[in-house]
């Protein structure tokens, strides 16, 4: 239960950090909040030669608002995702979050509370108060745990992830970041340097539901997203599941069915059915796939119904 020996480095700049990663040729690991990596080291499931602690890099901290960000062009992988999605619309403004922002800092941040209430709600469900004091947003995004809240939130809201290495800077769409459980599009020498969330229209309703055994546990089933509403119609929908497959699962069919629909005329049950069709839940010792699908269908219908009722009453 003690980590195997390694050399510890705590660089002050992004450049120093990715140079260390490059020089180690795959033998180095980034240490952010340590709330996942430290257990992996203790259990010796991870045995790097070099640990690169990024907690002292000031350039990886803080929350900033950007308008017309020159870099909002998002790299598309050759295989290509579905075309013509709502998220493709070029965003004029966005919120950029440094990866070393602690999860409890996300919850307390005034800008994020105003601009990204869904992210704040989702982050409240990540672990416990004590783990959120150290755990970072970037660490959770980098890890790609299938039942984690934040990768799904990033995928649902159309976030992009800026990564840097000695080879340069690139951006990865959050919904193309996750390849398999704990496997991401990140190369071993790449560092996440920013997570950028595009602004949604001002009239956007959040969606969030999580079912877990106890508060702070990983989700058995979780749902996160946002619906933008313009003159009684849904102009844009971004929805993703967590704990419902090997990676965050985008509810693409439900998004398409919702987009352009009048709020008053929606058939909530049939859209819930479509949403669950885009999942691939598994049996494990916590719950069966069938349980997850049943619960998923119900929480989707309930969350959507409530979100729209609130809108109609307003």
């Amino acid at each position, binding site marked *: 239960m003690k980590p*195997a*020996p390694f*050399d510890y480095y705590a660089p002050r700049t992004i450049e120093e950090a990715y140079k260390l990663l490059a020089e180690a040729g795959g033998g180095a690991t980034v240490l952010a909040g*340590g709330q996942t990596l430290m257990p992996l080291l*203790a259990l010796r499931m991870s045995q790097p030669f070099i640990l690169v602690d990024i907690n002292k890099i000031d350039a990886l901290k803080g929350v900033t608002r950007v308008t017309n960000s020159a870099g909002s062009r998002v790299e598309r992988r050759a295989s290509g995702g579905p075309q013509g999605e709502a998220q493709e619309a070029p965003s004029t403004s966005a919120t950029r979050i440094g990866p070393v922002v602690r999860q409890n800092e996300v919850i307390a941040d005034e800008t994020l509370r105003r601009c990204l209430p869904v992210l704040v709600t989702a982050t409240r469900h990540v672990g*416990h108060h*004590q783990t959120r004091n150290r755990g970072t947003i970037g660490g959770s995004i980098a890890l790609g745990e299938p039942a984690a809240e934040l990768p799904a939130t990033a995928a649902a809201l159309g976030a992009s992830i800026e990564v840097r290495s000695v080879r340069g800077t690139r951006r990865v769409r959050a919904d193309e970041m996750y390849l398999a459980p704990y496997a991401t599009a990140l190369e071993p020498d790449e560092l996440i340097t920013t997570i950028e969330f595009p602004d949604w229209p001002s009239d956007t309703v959040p969606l969030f539901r999580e079912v877990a055994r106890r508060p*702070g546990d990983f989700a058995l089933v979780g749902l996160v997203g946002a619906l933008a509403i313009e003159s009684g119609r849904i102009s844009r929908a971004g929805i993703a599941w967590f704990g419902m497959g090997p990676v965050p699962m985008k509810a693409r069919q439900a998004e398409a069915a919702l987009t352009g629909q009048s709020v008053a005329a929606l058939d909530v049950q049939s859209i819930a059915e479509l949403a669950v069709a885009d999942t691939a839940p598994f049996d494990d010792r916590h719950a069966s796939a069938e349980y997850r699908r049943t619960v998923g269908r119900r929480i989707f219908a309930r969350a959507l119904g409530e979100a729209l009722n609130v809108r109609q009453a307003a």
Partner: protein
Amino acid sequence: MSEHKIELTINGRRQQATVEGRKTLCDFLRVDTGCTGVHVGCEHGVCGACTVIIDGLAVRSCLMLAVQTDGCAVTTVEGLAAPDGALHPVQQALRDEHGVQCGFCTPGVVMTLAALTDGPKRPDADTLLDAMSGHICRCTGYQGIRRAACKLASKTGAEKP
């Protein structure tokens, strides 16, 4: 395998040490500085027994490296009671409400409640009870701990029975 010189404050006393890069904070506090009130239950972040306060925040000391606390102020349960032995309000509340049995989880529980209630704003009961999800107690059935947390909370929050 790297070694590092660190300088930190432990329970108000400035201290220097040389630590191996891989040494966890809980091992450093227990073995090198004698703060055996830091209890180590699971050693991988699940139980909360090892919770200490670093620069005002409750964190799990098994999930930090000692080298990361260079320049920090660390408080362990040894640093809470007054020099004359008078208990910290959190310790007193847990004692009054029978929130302690074997005492293994207790230092962690105490440190979380102390970090939250010694802060600038006194949290409501819901906040304190929510933070208790980060601790596992195998003896008390939690009711005494809940009562102590509610007693320590600001009265504006919704108190739970």
